C-alpha cells in the first residue's frame, strides 16, 4: 500500500518536474526571439535594405577575380595609352598593348571587347557596333561637347548620356566618353600582372620559359643572374608589392610573438606573488591580483591607443599592447596553475638542501611547464588574429595594408589577396601551435 503511494507521489512529482522543464524549454527560445526582435528594431535592420549598396558588392566581387584594361585617348593631346586598371604602374609602353588592341595608323585604334564586340576610336570619334542593337557613333568637339548618335530614338538603360559625359556599359565592356578623353575598358579574368609588371623583361613569359631562362646562362639583365633578376622583379612588383606584403605578414606575426612571449616572461614571476601557496602576504597577493585585473580590464583597444601616443605607429606598439593585456590574462592563469601544484615534489627537492631558487626551478617549474606552454601557444594563436586588428588601429603589419586597400575602394583584388594571405597565416599558425601543443602533452606524459 505504502509502496503504491510513494510511486504515485513520485509520479506526480515527475509530471510537475517535466512540466517545469517543458516551460523552461519554451521560455528560453521565446526570450531569445524577443531579444532578436528588439535588436531588429534597435539596429534598424529593416532600413538596411535601403542603405545597402549592392552595386558596391557587385564591384567588389567582380574586381576580386577579374581586372579591366583601359584603352584611353587623350582628346587634348591626341595619342593613346593602354593601362591595366588605368594605373600608371600598369601602363603599356607607347604603341604597345595586349593582342586585342590594334593600332591603326597615327590616331586610330581598334579594340576587340568580349563576346565579339568591337569598337574603333578614330581621332576624337568613336564607332561601336553593338550586336543586336546597332551602330553607336560619338564625336567629341571642343565646342559642343559629346555628340552621341544612336540607332534608336529612345536611349536604352545601359547608356547614360549628357553633353558632358556618356557611359556605355555592355556585356563586352565599358566605354566612357568625356571632353577630355575617350576610354574603352575590357574586363578579363584573373589577377593582372601578379608576378611581373609590364616593365619587367619577364612579363608574358610562360612558366616553362621562365624555368628555361633561370637555367640558361644568357643574361637578360646584364649584371645579374636570371634567377636573381626574376626573384627581384617579383619581389619589387610595383602593382602587388609582394615584398612589402610579406614584410607586413612577418610584422604581424612578430607582434603576436613578441607580445605573447614577453607577456609570459613578465607574468611568470608576478604569478608567484599572486599564488596563495607561494606568497604568504595577503596584501602583496591582493595587490598583484588587482594589477592583473586592471591590465585585463582596460582592454587591448585602450592600451593600443595609449601606447600609440607614446611609441607612434608600428609593430612595436602593437607588440606592447598585446604584452600588457596578456600579462593580465597570463598572470591569472599562471597563478591558478601555481596554486594547483603538488607540494610533495617541492618538499622532496627541499629535503636535498636546495635553495629557494633551485626549489622553484626543479620542484615547481617542471610541474607547471606543460600547462604554461600550452596556454602560451594557445594565446599566440589567438594573438595572430588580434595583431591583424591591432595593426589596423596602430598602423602596422598586414592590418594596415588591408585597411589602406579597402579605403581606396577600388583595389579589391588586393583586398582579396590580403584576406587570402591572412587566412593562410592564421591557419599555419594554428596548425603549428596545435602540433607543438600535442607534442608537449605527449612528451609530458612520456616524462611521467
Amino acid at each position, binding site marked *: 500500500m505504502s509502496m503504491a503511494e510513494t510511486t504515485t507521489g513520485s509520479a506526480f512529482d515527475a509530471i510537475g518536474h517535466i512540466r517545469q522543464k517543458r516551460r523552461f524549454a519554451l521560455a528560453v527560445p521565446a526570450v531569445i526571439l524577443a531579444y532578436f526582435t528588439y535588436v531588429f528594431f534597435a539596429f534598424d*535592420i529593416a532600413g538596411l535594405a535601403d542603405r545597402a*549598396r549592392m552595386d558596391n558588392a557587385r564591384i567588389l566581387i567582380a574586381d576580386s577575380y577579374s581586372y579591366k584594361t583601359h584603352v584611353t585617348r587623350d582628346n587634348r593631346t591626341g595619342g593613346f595609352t593602354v593601362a591595366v586598371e588605368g594605373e600608371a604602374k600598369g601602363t603599356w609602353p607607347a604603341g604597345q598593348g595586349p593582342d586585342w588592341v590594334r593600332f591603326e595608323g597615327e590616331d586610330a585604334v581598334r579594340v576587340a571587347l568580349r563576346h565579339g564586340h568591337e569598337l574603333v576610336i578614330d581621332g576624337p570619334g568613336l564607332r561601336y557596333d553593338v550586336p543586336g542593337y546597332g551602330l553607336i557613333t560619338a564625336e567629341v568637339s571642343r565646342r559642343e561637347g559629346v555628340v552621341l548618335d544612336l540607332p534608336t530614338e529612345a536611349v536604352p538603360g545601359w547608356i547614360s548620356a549628357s553633353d558632358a559625359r556618356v557611359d556605355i556599359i555592355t556585356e563586352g565592356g565599358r566605354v566612357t566618353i568625356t571632353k577630355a578623353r575617350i576610354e574603352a575598358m575590357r574586363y578579363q579574368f584573373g589577377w593582372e600582372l601578379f608576378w611581373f609588371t609590364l616593365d619587367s623583361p619577364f612579363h608574358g613569359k610562360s612558366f616553362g620559359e621562365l624555368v628555361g631562362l633561370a637555367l640558361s646562362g644568357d643574361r637578360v639583365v646584364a649584371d645579374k643572374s636570371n634567377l636573381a633578376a626574376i626573384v627581384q622583379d617579383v619581389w619589387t612588383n610595383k602593382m602587388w608589392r609582394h615584398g612589402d606584403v610579406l614584410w607586413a605578414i612577418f610584422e604581424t606575426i612578430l607582434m603576436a610573438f613578441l607580445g605573447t*612571449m614577453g607577456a609570459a616572461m613578465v607574468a611568470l614571476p608576478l604569478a608567484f606573488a599572486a599564488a596563495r601557496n607561494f606568497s604568504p602576504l595577503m596584501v602583496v597577493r591582493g595587490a598583484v591580483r588587482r594589477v592583473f585585473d586592471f591590465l585585463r580590464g582596460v582592454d587591448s583597444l585602450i592600451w593600443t591607443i595609449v601606447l600609440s601616443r607614446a611609441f607612434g605607429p608600428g609593430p612595436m606598439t602593437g607588440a606592447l599592447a598585446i604584452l600588457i593585456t596578456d600579462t593580465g590574462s597570463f598572470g591569472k592563469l599562471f597563478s591558478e596553475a601555481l596554486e594547483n601544484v603538488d607540494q610533495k615534489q617541492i618538499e622532496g627537492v627541499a629535503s636535498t638542501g636546495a635553495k629557494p631558487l633551485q626549489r622553484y626551478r626543479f620542484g615547481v617549474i617542471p610541474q607547471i611547464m606543460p600547462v604554461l606552454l600550452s596556454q602560451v601557444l594557445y594565446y599566440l594563436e589567438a594573438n595572430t588574429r588580434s595583431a591583424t586588428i591591432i595593426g589596423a588601429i596602430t598602423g602596422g603589419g598586414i592590418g594596415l595594408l588591408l585597411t589602406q586597400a579597402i579605403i581606396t575602394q577600388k583595389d579589391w583584388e588586393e583586398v582579396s589577396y590580403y584576406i587570402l594571405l591572412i587566412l593562410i597565416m592564421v591557419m599555419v599558425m594554428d596548425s603549428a601551435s596545435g602540433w607543438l601543443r600535442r607534442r608537449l602533452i605527449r612528451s609530458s606524459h612520456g616524462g611521467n
Partner: protein
Amino acid sequence: MARVQAEYMAMTRRKRMYGGVMLIVFIALMVSGFRVADSRNAGGFWNGIGNIFQFPAEVLREAGEKIANLPGLMWTFLPSLIETVNIAAASTLLGAIMAIILSLLSTRGLAKWPRLVGLFRRVMDILRAFPEIVIALVLIFILGGGPVPAMIAIALHTAGALGKLFSEVNENASLKPVEGLQSVGATWGQQMWLGVMPQVAPNYLSYALLRFEINIRASAILGFVGSGGIGYDLKNAFSWGQGRYDAVAAIFLLLFLTIVFFDQLSGRYRNKLIGGGTA
C-alpha cells in the same frame, strides 16, 4: 650499476643541452625580433618608454579639472555603450546558434550526414580563421557603417570558435539517450534537442558566456574602425584632441567598468554552471 648511472648522467646532460640550445634560440629570437620591431616602429622603444605616462597623465589631468562633466558625459555615451553590448550579445547568440548546429553536424556519432563531418569541420576552421576586422571592413563597404557589419563579423567568427569547443563537449556526451530516442522513431532534430541538449547545455552556456566577454571587447574595437558603438565615439573624442580629453576619460571609464562588470558576472555564473555540472 655504474653503467646505468653514466647513461643516466649522459641523458640528463643531453636533455639539459637541448634545453640550453632551445633557450638560446628563444632569446636570440626575442632579441632580434625586438630590434626589428623597434627599427620599423615610427617612434623608437627607448624614446617612447619615457613618454608612456604622458598621454594618460594629460587625460587624467584634464578629467580631473573637469570632473563635474564626467557623469554627464558618461550619460551621453551610455546609448553607444548599450549598442556595443548589444552587438556583442546579438552576435554571441547568433554565433552560438550557428555553432550548435555546426558542432552537432561535425561530431562523429551525432552527425546527421556522417560523410560530411569533415566538410563541416573545415567550415568551422575557416570561420574561426577570419579575424573579425576583415569581414567587418568589407561589410562596412557594402552595408554602410552601423552595428550590423560588426554583428555579422563577430557572429561568424564566434560560430567557428564556439563550434570547435562545442564539438569537443559533444564528444563526451552519452549516446544512450540518443539511441533511446532513435528507437522510438524521433527525428534527428528531436534526438538532438531532447537527447543531447540537456547533457551539454551547462557547458555550452559556460563557453558562450566566456565568448560574450571576449565579444564585448571585439565589438568595442570594431567600433573604432567604423562600425558604431562606443568604439566609434572613442575614435571621435580622441581625434578632437586636447580640450576634449574629458570625453576620452569618460569613455575609458565606461568601457573599463563594463568589461570588469561582465567579466565578474560571467565568471560567477560559469563557476556555478560548471560546479553544478560536476557536483
